[in-house]
């Protein structure tokens, strides 16, 4: 062995030994436990309680960064609107970047080790299924906004699912299609013909729609699930052109949705009514396609910032302040985070600020919340079922794109503009 190799071997061995020495240290000495989170700035001794930290791991980089930032801004705005404190104790938002599931879990662990015990999910809720299994063990209060209907498989103390779920979303879309058919096209459910178009990745969204259609006698004349790899929409559009139907319901992501809409525009084809199942159709990517394509397209989503003030007190202030501060109109995602934070504030109001570090007390206060619809700025109410799923987050909104803006057109009590159905150029 040459001298250089011997030196290299010694250096590597030294590095390895150092790593082992630190890696095998006493975990108990460095890892905080649930009951004793590390000090979070400030101290009780000087009479002032340290701020309560609320963690959010969201997608601040990567392709979904726009949604992640909307969540961040919505949460910041909510905190700003309560003056950064509740009952005299300050609240601090701690944001971390989670562009992937692995990164989200890793950042969650980092925040937990930094003493954060109260969390709200970020855009995409990509790791909430994992958190659902961890929150009770870690005694960390977690408010999820994920839409998986089966997120919670059993009772939980610390994990709450506050937003809408996919089943409500899908069934709601079909029911609204039936209503639109009756009101604007003069067709009863049994005479209504719909075409359903979706990427098979979103089959779980399409299935409840199909079930609802069948239960109400709606004829699904086209049921086209295409693989994600599909690049050529011409055959599908030709089929649509040659089929008699009333409402087209596309459930698409950005790559396939863009190709599809461009192609129907190139073919100068316009279905009578397009009622999209949200997702791509609520995003800036969609509005980037231009008014010629987007005008008149209806899209169902969660409650979004286009709903009326009468049904969602505080939403106008939220919209105006948001636009003034961030320079653009808020998306539905920002309202989700804003609404979720307001749920936390209602929970904190029920607990003495001195006890906020006791997550068991916070979880009990959360469980006791009871709000009818129309009392919070995201319209939805709060009432948890036995699995801590919110039973008052089932209402969906249909918005219509008009000259680059989305307006709530359905249901009547959330409406901000009358719908134009079918759209006339």
């Amino acid at each position: 062995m040459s001298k250089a190799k011997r030196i290299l071997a010694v250096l590597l061995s030294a590095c390895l030994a150092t790593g082992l020495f630190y890696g095998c240290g006493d975990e108990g000495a460095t890892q905080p436990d649930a009951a004793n989170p590390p000090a979070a700035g400030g101290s009780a001794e000087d009479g002032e309680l340290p701020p309560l930290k609320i963690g959010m791991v969201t997608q601040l980089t990567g392709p979904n960064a726009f949604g992640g930032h909307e969540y961040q801004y919505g949460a910041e705005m909510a905190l700003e609107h309560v003056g950064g404190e509740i009952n005299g104790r300050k609240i601090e938002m701690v944001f971390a970047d989670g562009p992937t599931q692995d990164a989200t879990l890793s950042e969650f662990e980092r925040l937990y080790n930094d003493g954060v015990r109260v969390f709200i999910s970020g855009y995409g809720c990509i790791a909430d299924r994992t958190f659902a299994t961890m929150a009770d063990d870690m005694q960390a209060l977690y408010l999820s906004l994920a839409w998986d209907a089966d997120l919670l498989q059993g009772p939980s103390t610390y994990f709450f699912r506050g937003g809408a779920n996919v089943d409500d979303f899908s069934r709601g879309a079909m029911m609204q299609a039936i209503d639109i058919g009756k009101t604007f096209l003069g067709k009863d459910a049994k005479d209504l013909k719909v075409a359903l178009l979706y990427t098979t990745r979103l089959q779980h969204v399409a299935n409840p729609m199909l079930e609802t259609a069948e239960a109400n006698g709606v004829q699904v004349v086209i049921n086209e699930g295409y693989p994600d790899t599909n690049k050529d929409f011409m055959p599908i559009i030709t089929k649509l052109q040659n089929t008699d139907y009333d409402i087209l319901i596309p459930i698409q992501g950005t790559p396939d949705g863009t190709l599809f809409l461009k192609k129907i525009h190139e073919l100068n084809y316009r279905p009578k009514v397009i009622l999209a199942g949200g997702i791509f159709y609520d995003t800036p990517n969609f509005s980037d396609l231009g008014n010629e394509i987007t005008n008149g397209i209806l899209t169902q989503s969660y409650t979004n910032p286009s709903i009326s003030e009468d049904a969602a007190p505080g939403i106008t202030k939220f919209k105006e302040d948001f636009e003034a501060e961030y320079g653009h109109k808020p998306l539905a995602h920002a309202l989700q985070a804003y609404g979720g934070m307001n749920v936390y504030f209602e929970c904190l109001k029920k607990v003495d600020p001195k006890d906020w570090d006791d997550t068991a007390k916070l979880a009990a206060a959360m469980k006791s919340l009871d709000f009818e619809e129309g009392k919070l700025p995201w319209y939805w109410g709060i009432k948890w079922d036995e699995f801590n799923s919110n039973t008052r987050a089932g209402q969906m909104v249909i918005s219509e794109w008009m000259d680059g803006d989305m307006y709530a057109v359905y249901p009547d009590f959330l409406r901000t503009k009358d719908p134009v159905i079918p759209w006339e150029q």
Partner: protein
Amino acid sequence: MGVSAYINIILNGICVGGMYGLMSSAFTFQVGSLRMVNFTYGACIMLSMYLTFFFIRMVNAPVILAALGVIVINFAIGWLMRKTLLKRIDEGMNILTTMGLQLVIMNLVLFFFTSYPRDLAVFEKRIYFTPKISVGIIQLACFVMAGVILVSFQLFLNKTWTGRAIRAVVQNRDVAGLMGINSERTLDLAFSLSFILIGVAGMMLMTMFTVEPNFGDYITLIGFVICITAGLNNLTGAFITGVLVGVLSALISGVLGTAYHDPMLFGLFVVVLLVRPYGLFNKRKNAVRNI
């Protein structure tokens, strides 16, 4: 659906199939003729699409300059690959190294362009033969160009000294060497030229589709199916098979539904392999390797 609907579907399938044919020709030339198994092939087409997007949408370069840029970069990539990863003609090693490089290319694209889908935001005009039968101008133009490029490439191989040298090296490297041909340099050139075909295919695909980093996976798969179905080494066969696959894909999607597309297409591929293991356009197992 009426007759005009079927004609529309078939016309669309022919045009898209022409693209498949062009890109598969490059693949069959590399794998079958040059015996260099290049699994970066789909990723390189995807990269060419991003480069087209970069030059036209981000740099606002004129189309001619953008095309030139894509071709030059592709030629350079081909040359570099041949000089490094594919220096030794060893199929096993080629497969592994190019598969690794494919991942590198995909992740670099992800890093620089993110996974946000990109397109040229070009709305295609259509030529209407009747009020119900039409074809996209860009699609038609790409189909014609693909045919012209392949015929030109074939003429280059048959009629020029360089082309003949490539064919000689492909047929018998040792004898070509004895005739004074520098076989290494000739193979370098041939491989790099095949990357021009990849670049052109990428540019054409970019005018029709939206690109994202995993776009190449599908291209690799469809290119592989076409090459094997046509029979390796056969450029004309690859082009014709590409058109056939395009038409078949469109008909399956339009008539039966897109859910049946992959099972039927790949099922047919298996049948072809069983019935004609050497491809639709190759006659016997030990055919003299030619192009």
